[in-house]
């Protein structure tokens, strides 16, 4: 019987599993940062986390951060790079893994953070920031987002951050390598089918049914027969997450 945990904590735990030891990982704020800190504390002690803003540090900041540019994140950093240098590492293929979220994702893992809705009721979103760069240039891309039907759509209104476009071969044709490897939601984990590049269920979180995922997904999503269950965090994992997010600001 495992310790109770929140949906956020499960997502963080599962995201941490995507990080391999010795990798250079682009860490944003919120869930990916906690996933990185967890991975560093468990199976990937030599993973290196580079904040998208160019801050590189070995140890977590002495105080909780609201933005990655907060002063505690700079003090004691190994290096503060400008955007060119940080993005240059990404563009040169040195960043094995990046995390992003999105307001909308589609069947082929394309993400939209520019605007949603229909023409007479458009909601303007903040835009790409570095998300498009990470989606284009990281070795592997892990998407972490809430699973809602309005977010999991057949085709995104705008491709802010390209996934597999229209399917297999599309990234090659654009001149892109990499691509999304995993999508982690509060219901399930998805991978991309190697032939079609379509997003398919890899595991369902404990207690989630295939029908529930189908109902929350805007295309006829493939769920394998007898889908595996997502691994759950151990007490140790949870202790680490709660140490780095004592208020549960990001993980609850």
């Amino acid at each position: 019987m495992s310790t109770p945990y929140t949906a956020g904590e499960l997502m963080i735990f599962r995201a941490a599993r995507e990080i391999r030891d010795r990798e250079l990982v682009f860490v944003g704020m919120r869930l990916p940062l906690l996933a990185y800190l967890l991975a560093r504390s468990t199976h990937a002690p030599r993973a290196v986390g580079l904040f998208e803003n160019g801050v590189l540090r070995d140890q977590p900041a002495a105080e909780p951060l609201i933005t990655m540019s907060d002063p505690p994140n700079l003090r004691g950093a190994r290096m503060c790079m400008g955007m060119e240098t940080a993005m240059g590492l990404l563009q040169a293929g040195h960043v094995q893994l990046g995390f992003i979220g999105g307001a909308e994702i589609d069947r082929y893992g394309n993400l939209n953070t520019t605007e949603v809705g229909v023409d007479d009721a458009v909601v303007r979103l903040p835009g790409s920031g570095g998300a498009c760069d990470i989606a284009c240039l990281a070795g592997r891309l892990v998407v972490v987002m809430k699973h809602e039907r309005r977010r999991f759509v057949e085709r995104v209104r705008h491709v802010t951050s390209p996934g597999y476009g229209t399917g297999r071969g599309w990234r090659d044709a654009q001149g892109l390598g990499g691509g999304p490897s995993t999508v982690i939601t509060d219901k399930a984990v998805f991978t991309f089918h190697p032939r079609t590049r379509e997003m398919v269920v890899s595991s369902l979180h404990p207690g989630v049914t295939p029908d529930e995922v189908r109902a929350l997904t805007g295309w006829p999503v493939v769920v394998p027969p007898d889908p595996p269950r997502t691994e759950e965090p151990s007490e140790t994992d949870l202790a680490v997450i709660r140490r780095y997010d004592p208020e549960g600001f990001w993980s609850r």
Partner: protein
Amino acid sequence: METKLYTLPEAISLFVRPGDTVAMGTALESLIPFAAGHEIVRQEIGDLTLVGPISDMLFDLLIGAGCVRRVVAAWVGNVMMGTGYNFRRAVERGAPHPIEVVEHTNLTLQAALKAAAQGLPFLPTRTALGSTILERNPGLKTFRCPFTGQTLMAVSALAPDVAILHVQRADALGNAHVWGNLGVTQEAAFAAERVILVADEVVAPWVISSDPNRTLVPGFRVAAVAEARWGSHPSPCQGYTNRDDGFYRAYHGASRTREGFEAWLDRYVRGVEDHGAYVRLLRDEGRLAGVAVREHAYTVAADYGF
């Protein structure tokens, strides 16, 4: 040597003109020149094109204040809270008036400023390929590498009329030291036609010369230096001002409606005479104590001796 020292109102009034393309917020969430932005609002300088990678609250504020015609950015909002309501209102409903948005990614915006800084008409990148961002930015275009033939994204040069940069310290000649995460600050400093430095501290030239590798931009590229202690508030300035998270949160709440935003502007921007009055207001509200540096952490010196 000629001094470039002005008061902040003088610097803004002399070097920011209606219709200008203005780079601000070049260091991402830190070193945002809020004091200068507030002065632009007070002087009612309008029709501006704002340029910055992400823009944490300041662009939203300037849009809401009606100063902006166009935004050239990768991300516009309030980093801590998400949405920028004034940005949304302007794009979705044309309130207070419509704005044009030119979409970038962080890297394409960096490349656009860098191209201008280097005197090049464009720079290549490998980003944004296959995205629809380039449909909303005429300065992005795919082309083929002259050597390999591979598809690349060309980013055309973007030279702001003026870059307003908050720095920790500068001398009266325009030589500045700045530290922390700098984003595209140096690109903007070299790309812009005019540079306005807003410094937490104006120092003697020998302070800058003691560490010439930390100099952001040489004085001859700088139009004005204005001293404004706490001038980055509510954004942080490492070693001088911590982030005022509560201020961002309060702005988010206040700006949810046009009326709330107008009240905010009246209280913190239009209703204060200048940056000095703003600082007094912050002090009266008990905010300065919260953002003051609690523990100094000085660099180990480098030795320029011989």
